[in-house]
């Protein structure tokens, strides 16, 4: 087994193991930690795909900012994660339908040709090229995403300011 295949199997096993433990965890903090593990393993897989910019942004944004925010909210709300009752209709139906969805996707993807491998595209995908495209071809989407981030920041600050105002009263 080559080096790449071994690394791929290890990272995929980490993702699946982390996913299953995330679903079955009884404490909220354990679920957050398995979430973090899944995010880092996904970043590893994206590095294997030669998409270095997306992997770096994933580690910064997801595994960095979003996990810390979630940990802050866990600290502030301190709710337990009630465990999923194993035999309830919700759990069984959702597992069945998700499995059907996975089979649908997998059977359609499985007909892709196996010789479409990951090309060694690291020589022309670099950050300068992505930046040039973002500012020339996709500048509309870029500016609208900036406005959306601004609106999200203002909205989140406004929502939480009502909390602070209530506590002072």
């Amino acid at each position, binding site marked *: 087994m080559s080096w*790449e295949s071994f690394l*791929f199997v290890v990272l995929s096993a980490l993702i699946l193991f982390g996913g299953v433990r995330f*679903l079955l965890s009884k404490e909220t903090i354990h679920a957050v930690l398995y979430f973090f593990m899944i995010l880092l393993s*996904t970043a590893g897989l994206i590095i294997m795909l030669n998409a270095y910019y997306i992997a770096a942004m994933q580690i910064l944004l*997801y595994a960095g900012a979003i996990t810390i925010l979630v940990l802050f909210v866990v600290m502030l709300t301190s709710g337990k994660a009630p465990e*999923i009752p194993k035999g309830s209709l919700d759990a069984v139906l959702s597992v069945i339908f998700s499995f059907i969805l996975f089979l649908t996707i997998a059977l359609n993807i499985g007909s892709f040709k196996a010789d479409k491998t990951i090309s060694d595209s690291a020589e022309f995908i670099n950050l300068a090229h992505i930046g040039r495209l973002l500012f020339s071809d996709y500048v509309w989407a870029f500016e609208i995403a900036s406005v959306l981030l601004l609106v*999200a920041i203002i909205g989140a600050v406004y929502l939480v300011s009502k909390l602070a105002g209530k506590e002072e009263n």
Partner: protein
Amino acid sequence: MLPQVYFLMVAAGLFCIGLIGALTRKNTLLVLMSVDLMLNAVILNFAAFSTTFKMADAALRGQIFAVFVMVIAAAEVGVGLAIILLLFSKKQTIEIGKFSSLKG
């Protein structure tokens, strides 16, 4: 050289795991995190599709779309966590079954 299909299968499996989590967890924070897992699977999917092309601009389109998905996910998590904090300050719990005051 690994075929592209393996990465797509992993992304599909992660998507389905996030879907199960979003449907069955009773803590609102964990539902938000499961939706985040689904978006993460979409990003992995875009990255896998983008790097099997040999021409530069076709390969970059997937990555730029993945960047925008990440931006949307970050904004959504920010606002969602603020809403969860407000809900907690009203009802002192964040269990999903307790927010049923609109139930007819």
